[in-house]
Structures are given as C-alpha cells and as structure tokens.
C-alpha cells in the first residue's frame, strides 16, 4: 500500500511541470518513505528522513523557488532515447542483481549473520546504551559520524561561499 502510494507520488513528480507542486510532492515522498521506514523497524531513520526530507529540504526548495522568476518548468520534448536507454539498462542490471538476493525479511540472510549480531547481542554490555543504532552510530562507527558532521560543515561553508555577502562594516574594518 505504502509502496503503491510512493510509486504514484514519484510518477506524479515526473508528470508535473509546476515546480512548487513538485517540491511539495518530493516532501510528501520523503514523508511516505519515512512511514515505510517505520514499518521496516528503522525508527531512527524515519525520524531523520521526516525531519530532513519533509522539513529542511522542502524549506530550502521553497526558499529557492521564492527567488525564481518562473516556477514552471519549460515544456520539453518528452522522449529522449539515449537517457531512456541508460535508465532502462541501469534498472535491468539492478533487477538482475536482485534475483540472487536473500528474500525480504529472511533472518538467515548473510547481512544478519556476520557483523550485526555483535551489535545486537553485546552492545549493551560493551557500551551500556539500549538504542543499538546510537551505539553503532556514536561508538563502533563513530568515525563515520565524524565524517558526516564534516559533510554538514562543508555544506554550510559551501553555501556561505556561494551566497554569502560581506557583512559590510565588520569586514571593511578587518581589511
């Protein structure tokens, strides 16, 4: 059911030419996928996706659209043979790849056997935090999280570099 709604939203995004509507729909897409994440037990991810995808991303999109002179996409030739081929090929490779995948929810899949059991069984003794996602995020793979913080930092100073203006008096004094 959720998946069908998601597919409908995604296709509506392709068909629409109004950018405001597309931006809102992409927010809805994020929100729906957050619901799907809850169904698949990923509560932390769902929380983040809802806050980021439906919240921050949408605010940024709308903020950008507010600065545009036109918020309608130009009607363009709808069929592009080469990109279509690329998309079909990529999709075909992916579907081909799924054929040998373990079944959805299979508890005997390799993913659940090798590294993950330690996080589930021993993280409480080793770290003392009931939320395993927090213990993996902050401790076992804390360095990834450090990298992630740096990515956010990069984006912040990148946006400042691109859009920031000199804050006149303060800057002039310094020079």
């Amino acid at each position, binding site marked *: 059911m959720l998946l069908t709604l998601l597919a409908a939203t995604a296709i509506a995004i392709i068909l629409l030419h109004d950018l405001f509507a597309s931006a809102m729909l992409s927010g809805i897409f994020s929100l729906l996928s957050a619901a799907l994440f809850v169904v698949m037990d990923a*509560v*932390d991810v*769902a*929380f*983040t996706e809802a*806050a*980021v995808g439906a*919240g*921050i991303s949408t*605010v*940024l999109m709308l*903020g*950008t659209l*507010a*600065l545009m002179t036109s918020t309608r996409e130009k009607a363009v030739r709808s069929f592009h043979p080469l990109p279509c081929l690329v998309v079909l090929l990529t999709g075909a490779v992916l579907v081909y790849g799924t054929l040998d995948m373990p079944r959805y929810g299979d508890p005997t899949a390799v993913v659940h056997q090798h590294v993950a059991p330690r996080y589930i069984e021993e993280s409480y003794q*080793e*770290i*003392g*935090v*009931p*939320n395993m*996602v*927090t*213990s993996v*995020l*902050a*401790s076992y793979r*804390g*360095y990834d*999280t*450090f990298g*992630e*913080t*740096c990515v*956010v*930092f990069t*984006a*912040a*100073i990148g*946006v*400042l570099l691109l*859009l*920031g*203006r000199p*804050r006149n008096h*303060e800057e002039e004094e310094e020079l």
Partner: protein
Amino acid sequence: MKQTMQRDLILRVVSKVLIPYIFLFALYVQFHGDYGPGGGFQAGVIFASGIILYALVFGLRRAQATFNPRWVEIFCALGVLLFGGVGIWSLFQHGNFLDYNVLNHHDPKHGQHLGILLIELGVGIAVTAAMVSIFFTFTGRGRSA
C-alpha cells in the same frame, strides 16, 4: 508572503508559545537518544527548525539580531571541533582516536557514556548552526538582491 506572516497576530502568538516547546523537544531528543530514537543530528534539525520558524514569523532581521550569523558560523566550526576534540582527547589518554573506553580509567562504560554524550553534543551544535546558517544565507540572498 513574509510580510503578511509578520502581521498575523495569531501566528505570532501561537509561535511564541510553540517555539520554546520546540527547543525543549530538541533538547529531549538530544539527550534521550540513548534510549529512544533520536540523537544529535535529529535534535540539531529540530532546534534549527525552531529558529527558522522564529525567522519566518518575526522576520529575518530580528532572528539575526538574536542569532548573529557570524556566531552561527563559529558555532558550526566549534561543533566539529568538539567532536574532533573528543578524539584528540582519547589520543592523549593513550587510546586510539575516538576510543571512549579510555576516557574513564575506572569504568570503560562511563567513558563510553561520556564520549557519546560529548560527540552527540558536538553533532547537535554543528548541525543546528549549519542548518540555521544555510537558511539565513538562502533567505538573506532574497532580501538584498
């Protein structure tokens, strides 16, 4: 759009009541991440959305008077430095980078708690500041252009 929002009395009153609770909720998410879903990143986003709501309702100028962009920029850097600092600290405690066990010599678990608390705080500060800074820069562009 912004002008009408700033004149709307109901919006202003409701936001005034709501914003402290958003901040409170952000703090809850920040420090409750050990037990339920949440953590520094989510808390940062929520805290930032409180500030963004303030800016939307009361205007960018007033928001920037309270949260000076220059300081927001510095806080973002400080958040990253706090995270990295925990790592450096564990180096000085003869552990590997980001090894929290060595932060408390009596009980490694306490060390883990302390380490996680500090780095989540670092993430929270950096993310709040980054999101607010990005929002300020985006909307500030519209003003002066």
